[in-house]
């Protein structure tokens, strides 16, 4: 298995990268860490004429704190997020979930922008970004725009990115004080893509009732799924056993996972309920412990 022939371009700045995209867009593919793209090239599932390697574009790297969000450059590697004290403090859901991304040999090359752009429905980052109601900033040589995950993720491995656009940065909202979070996943082997995964953030009021609930399930549908009715059901309730159990199964009928050799459709649907229940328990527990100060 060897990649097909292509022309290799390595821009040193974002402007240069965007100009290359403007020129070769239809026949070009952006390469960030290459951890999804290179297997596709090796198996010749993708045969672009040009590879634009943005690995040396320093402007696309880094983790910044804004008032209400952690802003991560598209070319920032998984390992840098995993080890970031800022992320651990302000958005620990990300620290927890990112450890499920491949193995450390993958996380030392793979990038946040790459995971989002690849849009595998069972990948961890799209699920966490959707749960957090984050934003994706995309740029072309002509314009810059900000999209919600729902606008960005269209279907299996399909996003609204146009051939002349790339991901500049991703905004992960900070987890608010008084909230708890959880990331739960089941994969056949650690490091494999998830059968199903759940990311949840719950905010508790002073009286112990749920003030806000943000949840996403990955691997269950063609894009990360927000169980809106479940979130609404939870708000205002005291999260005891019966409420959590009821919430966890409320919308399982709406899930449409693909069955394959690793797990049937029915199993994945059942698993979604189990993981959602675990995530809700853990998020409530953490909110009560006051883990976010």
């Amino acid at each position, binding site marked *: *298995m*060897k*990649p*097909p*022939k*292509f*022309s*290799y*371009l*390595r821009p040193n700045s974002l402007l240069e990268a965007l100009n290359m995209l403007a020129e070769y867009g239809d026949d070009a593919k952006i390469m960030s860490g*290459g*951890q999804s793209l*290179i*297997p596709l*090239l*090796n*198996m010749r599932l993708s045969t672009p004429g040009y*590879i634009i*390697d943005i*690995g040396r574009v320093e402007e696309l790297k880094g983790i910044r704190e804004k008032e209400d969000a952690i802003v991560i450059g598209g070319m920032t590697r998984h*390992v840098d997020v995993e080890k970031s004290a800022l992320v651990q403090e302000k958005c620990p859901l990300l620290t927890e979930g990112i450890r499920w991304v*491949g*193995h*450390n*040999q*993958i996380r*030392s*090359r793979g990038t946040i922008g790459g995971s989002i752009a690849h849009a595998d429905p069972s990948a961890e980052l799209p699920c966490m970004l959707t749960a957090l109601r984050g934003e994706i900033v995309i740029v072309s040589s002509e314009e810059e725009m900000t999209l919600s995950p729902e606008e960005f993720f269209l279907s299996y491995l399909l996003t609204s990115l146009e051939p002349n656009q790339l991901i500049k940065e991703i905004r992960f909202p900070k987890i608010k004080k008084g909230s708890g979070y959880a990331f739960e996943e089941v994969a056949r*082997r*650690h*490091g494999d893509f998830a059968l199903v995964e759940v990311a949840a953030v719950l905010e508790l009021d002073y009286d112990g009732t749920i003030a806000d609930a943000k949840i996403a399930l990955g691997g269950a549908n063609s894009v990360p799924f927000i169980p809106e009715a479940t979130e609404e059901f939870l708000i205002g309730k005291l999260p005891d056993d019966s409420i959590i159990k009821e919430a966890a199964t409320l919308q399982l009928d709406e899930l449409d996972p693909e069955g394959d050799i690793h797990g049937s459709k029915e199993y994945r649907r059942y698993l979604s309920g189990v993981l959602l229940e675990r995530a809700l328990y853990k998020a409530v527990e953490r909110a009560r412990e006051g883990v976010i100060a």
Partner: protein
Amino acid sequence: MSNYTVKIKVNGKVIDKEIESRWLLSDFLRDKLGLTGTHVGCEHGVCGACTVLLNGEPVRSCLMLAVQADGLEVETVESLAEEDGTFHPIQQAFANNHALQCGFCTPGFLMSMKNFIETHPVLPTDEEIREAISGNLCRCTGYSNIIKAVKEAYALKC
């Protein structure tokens, strides 16, 4: 530009070569430099046999183009033993503990563990070692002896 001139430091030696941009780092090391210690198993990032260190960090050399390593430093399993053949403590520990049988996966394990031991100076738990070796597959021995070897490597280094 399907050809590209790169300067890559491999096991301490700077290699200056014109290469095809489509060459994987693993093929560059094996076929162009003759460093066949890096083994190629699945060629799509699953098995870990081709793990090398890039600027000290473990990466899959089959999931990287050689051109991406331009200006960077690569270490392969050939860099571990001394010139006189004396094993690196990790190699010695693998040998002592029968942590390999056919040996195909071993270069990947050794390079992953070199980084792990360097970045985790305190003796880790079995659980942590299991997590650390989870990106490398071994089909002969099972993993118990590999875990023993990693622990012994800590002792040998002291």
